[in-house]
């Protein structure tokens, strides 16, 4: 549900796309400029220099082939569905690079230019490996990285490292005899480990930042959840109260019901408690309050699982409460103590008092549903008059087979 506290998505740099508007040739430079946040003129100048030197051709063709085209003008998101990640397929990148490079190199060699392939090839491999490795730090993937769904990510990172190491090895061992190669392999591994150690603190910091970011998002979600709940419950009740402000009894009932609901939401464990005596009693009291508009205070010590006996007790409490709110006067209070010697319940009001002697026999409510019900389950029920009011006391023995 939309709420005013819904977490805003984290800002990410614009995706690399080729815009139709503002392009000179294929939109590669314009797209790059938008993606990197650099003036398009600078990008075009660099691209021209690179093109003149040769490698720019490969880069331009690759970018052109791999970047999706969008109809939107720069600075606005494109229509969904036609966007594609730059690094969707690292294998595609490698294949494209190799094909383009081989073609260009073959053409160059044919026309008699010495490209020193021995140097150029390893350099290219290093570049590709680095790109694959670094692509894992792409903003869109960081969350997945942290979420841990990442054997694929790890594989890609590993592949990047291996390709990079291979490139360095090829570059260094170009003219060396086989006997020296092992030394060089060891040296390369040491260098890589050293580089890893240098980068590790940075990596750890990035990871910590991301964790903090996730925690903040969780807090924002919680806040949004709370706002939604308050909106659904409290604000609605307040609106109802304003509309019915003339009827004070109704207002009190609404306020009381809302208070109980909010309390159970804030402090209570929720619906899971309904299988216990305390949960069942709270439910019954809520129903009585809602039906009669008279507040009832519940104090409970100890607890017990629901069974036939406690079920009967809860029903008897409800009947006694109904009598209290109908014939008595507030404050009405319920005290229930559940311990090893059984359950005791006291229901008290402050009314004129109910005399058992003058209750007609046909008053089934009291005789049958309170006293009869408790005795059938091995307990007892009695009522007595207090200075103001009446107090019912109900007792229930411990459950069968209990070790007492």
């Amino acid at each position: 549900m939309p709420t005013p506290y819904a977490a805003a998505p984290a800002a990410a740099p614009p995706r690399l796309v080729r815009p139709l508007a503002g392009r000179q040739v294929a939109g590669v430079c314009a797209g790059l400029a938008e993606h990197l946040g650099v003036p398009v003129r600078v990008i075009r100048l660099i691209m021209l220099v690179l093109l003149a030197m040769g490698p720019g051709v490969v880069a331009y063709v690759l970018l052109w082939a791999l970047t999706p085209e969008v109809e939107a003008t720069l600075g606005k998101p494109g229509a969904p569905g036609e966007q594609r990640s730059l690094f969707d397929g690292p294998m595609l990148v490698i294949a494209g690079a190799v094909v383009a490079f081989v073609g260009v190199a073959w053409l160059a060699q044919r026309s008699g230019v010495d490209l020193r392939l021995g140097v150029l090839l390893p350099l290219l491999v290093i570049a590709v490996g680095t790109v694959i490795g670094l692509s894992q730090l792409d903003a869109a993937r960081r969350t997945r990285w942290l979420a841990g769904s990442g054997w694929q990510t790890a594989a890609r990172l590993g592949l990047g490292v291996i390709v990079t190491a291979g490139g360095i090895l090829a570059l260094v061992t170009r003219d060396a005899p086989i006997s020296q190669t092992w030394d060089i392999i060891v040296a390369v591994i040491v260098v890589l480990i050293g580089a890893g150690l240098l980068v590790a603190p940075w990596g750890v910091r990035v990871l910590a930042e991301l964790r903090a970011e996730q925690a903040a998002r969780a807090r924002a979600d919680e806040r949004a959840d709370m706002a939604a709940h308050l909106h659904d419950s409290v604000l609605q009740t307040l609106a109802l109260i304003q509309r019915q402000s003339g009827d004070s009894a109704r207002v009190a009932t609404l306020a009381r019901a809302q208070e109980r609901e909010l309390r159970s939401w804030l402090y209570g464990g929720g619906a899971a408690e309904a299988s216990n005596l305390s949960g069942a009693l709270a439910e019954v009291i809520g129903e009585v309050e809602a039906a009669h508009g008279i507040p009832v205070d519940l104090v409970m010590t100890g607890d017990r699982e629901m069974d036939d006996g406690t079920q009967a007790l809860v029903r008897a409490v409800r009947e006694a409460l109904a009598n209290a709110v109908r014939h008595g006067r507030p404050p009405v209070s319920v005290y229930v103590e559940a311990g090893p010697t059984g359950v005791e319940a006291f229901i008290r009001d402050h009314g004129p008092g109910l005399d058992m002697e003058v209750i007609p026999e046909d008053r089934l409510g009291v005789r049958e549903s309170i006293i009869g019900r408790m005795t059938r389950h091995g307990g007892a029920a009695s009522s007595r008059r207090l200075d103001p009011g009446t107090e019912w006391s109900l007792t229930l023995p411990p459950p069968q087979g209990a070790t007492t």
Partner: protein
Amino acid sequence: MSTTPAEAVRVVVVDDHRMFRTGVKAELEEVAGDRIDIIGEAPDVDTAIAVIRRDLPDVVLLDVHLPGGNGRGGVDVLAGCVAVDSRRGRPVRFLALSVSDAAEDVIAVIRAGARGYVTKTITGTDLANAVCRVADGDAVFSPRLAGFVLDAFGAAAGEIAEVDEELDRLSQREREVMRLIARGYQYKEVAKELFISIKTVETHVSSVLRKLQLSSRHELTAWAMGRKLV
């Protein structure tokens, strides 16, 4: 009762909701204007400590949840007003007033030194009586606080102290008094029920309060530790 109309109980109301402070003031003035004189109010911990140390009231009505201080609400106010005496030369007494049902909140302010705890839904007359009782040095237990006490000391499960001085359990008599308070009985009703005087009831309640503040039962210390009181 030593409080006579000539010397009304001087009260400071500490609560972060202005509407609630205004309501309490109006209600207390209406039902007990001759017995109770509200001399000040404060919306947060730091203002509360300053006002209490300046005006030296008899009783402070203290909300459990307050902004400011070290973030512990009413507990910080109690910590900041240790050994402050009222103008009459008696210690400033605190009565906790809360909407919270959470046991740890209640037990925390009691263990920090409050003389009682009542809920905000209490009627004006009952609140006035509670204020006067606290001013006289007695403890005020709501039915709910009595329920907490019975739970925390294991009294509901049948644990009873062998001797009255034992701090970690309630005596038989204290348990009976607590049970009657939990059932919604006034002090005078408790006295009548147990065939004892009101003064004896007050003695038992004060003794329970002392145990609540000094006991090292793990139910209590766990709460206190949760609130960084230990």
